């Protein structure tokens, strides 16, 4: 995610002064609640984690944790579907940010997963925790990348950006 400013003279604030007085399109454009859905999913994932942590070392009823996981997963899928339908969108910027953020959060989720495995968490509880971490590791990069890309002018299409 290392990007350097190019050699053109940067003038902060200058893009707002348009001849017709209109604001830049990136500010005025209304987008679906992609970040909101992903943040809600993160909240559900963390709630599931708190629920499981509050019952240790006993094996708590997994239904609430599975329900939170399913709800969060559904919100993440909804966010991804809405995201995939965005045209035009700064997909180049989105994927640039998303892949580095994903790398960072895979490392973070991996360390947390390692702790659970190391502590002999096993079976269905471990499966729920690992899936929770997977959804979490998808949500956060999506939020970061979407927030960055929404303020960028639409570049190449998603297809060209990914190839």
């Amino acid at each position, binding site marked *: 995610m290392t990007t350097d400013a*190019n050699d053109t003279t*940067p003038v*902060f604030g200058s893009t707002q002064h348009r001849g017709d007085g209109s604001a830049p399109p990136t500010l005025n454009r209304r987008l679906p609640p992609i970040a909101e859905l992903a943040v809600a999913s993160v909240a559900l994932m963390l709630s599931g*984690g708190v629920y499981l942590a509050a019952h240790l070392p006993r094996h708590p009823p997994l239904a609430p944790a599975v329900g939170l996981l399913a709800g969060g997963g559904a919100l993440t899928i909804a966010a991804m579907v809405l995201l995939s339908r965005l045209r035009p969108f700064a997909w180049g910027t989105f994927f640039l940010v998303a892949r580095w953020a994903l790398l960072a959060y895979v490392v973070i989720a991996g360390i*947390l997963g390692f702790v659970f495995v190391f502590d002999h968490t096993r079976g269905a509880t471990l499966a729920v925790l690992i899936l929770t971490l997977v959804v979490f590791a998808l949500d956060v990069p999506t939020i970061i990348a979407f927030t960055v890309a929404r303020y960028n002018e639409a570049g190449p299409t998603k297809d060209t950006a990914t190839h």
Partner: protein
Amino acid sequence: MADVVHEAELALRQVPPVEAVTARPPRNFQIVPLRGLPVVAVILAGLVATIATNQLWAIDFFHVVGGGMWTALDLFLGFVIGPILGRLSIPARTEFTTRFMPKMVLIMPTLVICTLAAGWQLARHLGTIDASYSHHGWVVASVIVVAVMAVIALGVLEPANIAVLFELNKPQPNGEIIGRLMRRFIFTAGITGAMQVATLVIMTRIATT
């Protein structure tokens, strides 16, 4: 708490109109400082080794040092740097942001993962995470506070921080976008700072009762 919110609101109201000011962000700043990555890698490797060896002192070290720095940084950012940042001129704010924020991109996630992973292991080691622990309610409360802070930090604060850096790195940064994102950043930093006070109360209660 009310004073803190008032201070943050005051700072937000005093944000200079970005349309009126022209500033030049420094060139060639890195959104993620590459020189810091080896340091982060060493710290994370130390964390994993500490958990794997399960040494109480080392686990306690990572949790206390990480948590102390995380709390101090959140409080300092929310109640000291944030209000000051809101009152700076646009050139000064830009200059500060491009030097300060990239470092935070590396520092904060590293501190958070060290605190949480070592804290979990420490709680398992000491038995404070067990439901039978006499102050289990306080432990659960601390986990809830951390979860709320995580939602705010991961969902609002960090994305705003990175979006500001991307905007500042453009040939012609948009002042209105930066102003909007910075307001969000300053306000949420104030909220997480206030929540860190709750963390301090809970942790000192657990340690002394």
